[in-house]
């Protein structure tokens, strides 16, 4: 005979337990009021499986624990109908901006975190700064993009700068372009421009992604469409995938910022 001293203890209140079971049943019933067949079926499946499970599991715990659990379940079930908070789609993690005109330009500002331990450690270890630009496909002059930093032309993107995996030739991927350390002396920020090579004839695509930790504010990415500036933060809650990375000799990344 298995002895459960809790069941026989004075704190074991059968009325509270009955109340908890009643509340659980009420919560399951409320869950069943679903506007779509699919929601009804999926909820019914889990409400039944978990409901019985809760009875088996919590049935051995203290009555007030059972009551608290059942009440939480009931309140959550009611909240589905009472609170109007639809499941929000997050901003896209990968999107593209076509550049098909020489007047068009992508601009991005980065404020290097000079004062941080991360930067100072990387800089003191002779870290080499790189600008990473994400673009679609294999770019080779003249069908390529040109990178400018603080007004100085740095490089036209080419295949030797390709970095990271590209499952297909037309996949998106990073271009890793070294920038001189001298650019960082006396310059509080990096103003980066990416334009089409003037000789290019094909449309090119620069990637964009989410933004969570911009160094120069959420509006630091902009696109000039030939007539006006547009911020991807406003249109897509995102930024262009242009980043600064400080790397050690073995490829160790001290930090990545945008």
């Amino acid at each position, binding site marked *: 005979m298995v002895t*459960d001293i809790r069941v026989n203890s004075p704190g074991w209140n059968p009325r509270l337990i009955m109340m908890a079971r009643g509340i659980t049943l009420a919560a399951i019933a409320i869950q069943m009021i679903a506007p779509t067949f699919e929601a009804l079926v999926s909820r019914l*499946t*889990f409400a039944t499986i978990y409901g019985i499970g809760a009875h088996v599991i919590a049935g051995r715990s203290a009555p007030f624990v059972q009551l608290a659990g059942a009440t939480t379940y009931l309140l*959550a079930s009611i909240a589905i109908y009472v609170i109007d908070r639809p499941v929000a789609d*997050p901003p896209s993690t990968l999107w593209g901006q076509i550049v098909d005109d020489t007047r068009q330009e992508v601009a991005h500002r980065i404020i290097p975190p000079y004062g941080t331990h991360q930067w100072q450690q990387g800089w003191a270890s002779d870290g080499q700064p790189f600008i990473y630009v994400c673009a679609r496909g294999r770019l080779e002059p003249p069908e390529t993009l040109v990178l400018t930093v603080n007004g100085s032309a740095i490089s036209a993107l080419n295949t030797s700068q390709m970095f990271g*995996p590209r499952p297909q030739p037309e996949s998106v991927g990073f271009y890793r372009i070294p920038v001189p350390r001298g650019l960082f002396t006396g310059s509080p920020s990096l103003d980066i421009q990416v334009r089409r090579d003037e000789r290019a004839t094909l449309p090119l695509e620069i990637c964009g992604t989410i933004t969570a930790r911009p160094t120069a504010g959420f509006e630091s990415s902009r696109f000039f469409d030939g007539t006006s500036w547009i911020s991807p933060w406003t249109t897509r809650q995102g930024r262009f995938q242009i*980043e600064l990375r400080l790397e050690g000799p073995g490829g160790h990344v001290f930090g990545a910022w945008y």
Partner: protein
Amino acid sequence: MNFQNRQPLGPRRDLAAGACAFAIAGIAINAVRPDDSVSTVPLLLDLAVSLWATIWVAVFAMLSIGSVIPGVRRMFAPDPELVEPDPPVGSSGFRSGKRDWCFAILLALICVAEWGTHGGERNGFLASSRPEAGMEDWTAADGYATVLDGHPAQGDGLFLLNLVGLFTAERPSLSGEFDRRAGHVWLASLLQRPLGSYWAFALVNLAGWYASAIGVWWLGRHRWPQTWTGELAAVMVATGQGFIFMSTAPQAHPAAFGAFVTGLVLFDRLSLWSLVQTRRERWEAIIGPAWMTGIAGLLYFGHIPLLLMTWIFGGPRMRVQSLVAVSAGAFAIVTAWQVVGENLLGLRFSGGNNDLAGGAIRIWLRIMSEGGWSLRWQFHAGSIRGLLVGAFYYPWWILAVIGIYASPRRSRTWALAILAGTLLPAIAFSPQFRLPRAAYFAFPAVYLLAGASVSMISQMIATRITARDDRWRTAAGLVACAVVIAGLATLTNLDLAGDQTFNVWFHEAQENSW
């Protein structure tokens, strides 16, 4: 039933498995032609530990499960549960005293503090996917991330939202990577309206975290009575690497870990392992664990380690019909969702994460068909030692090994069954992905054994350094425990100081480096 007089004394399964592991690992190292995996001492040791651990786990599991056959059972020494009855449930559990309440609140505070300080962009799962961690070369500066309700979150969260929308009746049924883990999403959907998606997933994680800590505390009290093992292990859970790594990530693991521990508690409370039960209690002891195991399977693949543990620990002491009934019930519940999902909702339960287990089996078969060299090379390429150290760093393993000797045989056998049952799937999965987060299901065993060892060591220290009365000894012991626990917690919190090493190892194992 007294088996002591009826069964001959024989070797212990754990020791027999250890001897087998030494022999087979030795043959595999010496008899197969040399290659890079034995070219240096660290690599040779890495291979040896990987082989030994894998063979021990496999042989211990086989000998234990094989003990459902009476002939095999008689070959080994009788298990302590067959000789001494289990302590009654509740005799060593919580006592609802002021001290217990204070400790439960303390555990809650530690869990919330760890959860809060490792949330959002500081989440270990997310941080270890950033370029600085050196693990991925395709991720942008934010790592493998998405933005849920304005909060940076681990990227898989994006793929869970369609399922959340299905439960809240906002979206049609769309097949996705995580159809099998819908139980986790259903829990989050209950909180989505009041809290939003990000906090709903985060709170489910916290609930799993706290349930794990409380469950491990109870198990420690029950299986290591009159010691601080339960309390120490519970704090190790509250500051545990696996939970810190997950913290607010929209992932099913913390809920599944919680379900795993709850299952272990339930098995004890329902006296699943006891041979002397009335008919009604036997059914209750079978249906309850089967149901709980099924629930763990709907959260993540928690039913696999729970069932393996049940067979490994139950094999020598339970009737085979009971083991089959528990397994069939658990699989019936997991399959019920798949039948409903496929036929009524049009979900496919295939593709992406749904197919990973089948893929791992195919890889093992291919490796084995290529012969001994290929098989041995796999233990180098997919270092099992690196996998285990990624899940629990050396101090925990060292303490756990000491804990094996510091524990009564009844508790040790139970803990070893958990170790084998949880590590077997993680090792089996390793040719495809090395996932310390799958091996982390072993945390109740590792932390409880480590807790037993800390408890024993602190008692020894207390006895040595003070000859005063018991109160002084208790205080000295507590200080010693606190120092060890603080040291361990410092390691798991190193990421707060900017060091992501442990998160990176937990993400993708330690590889061959020591």
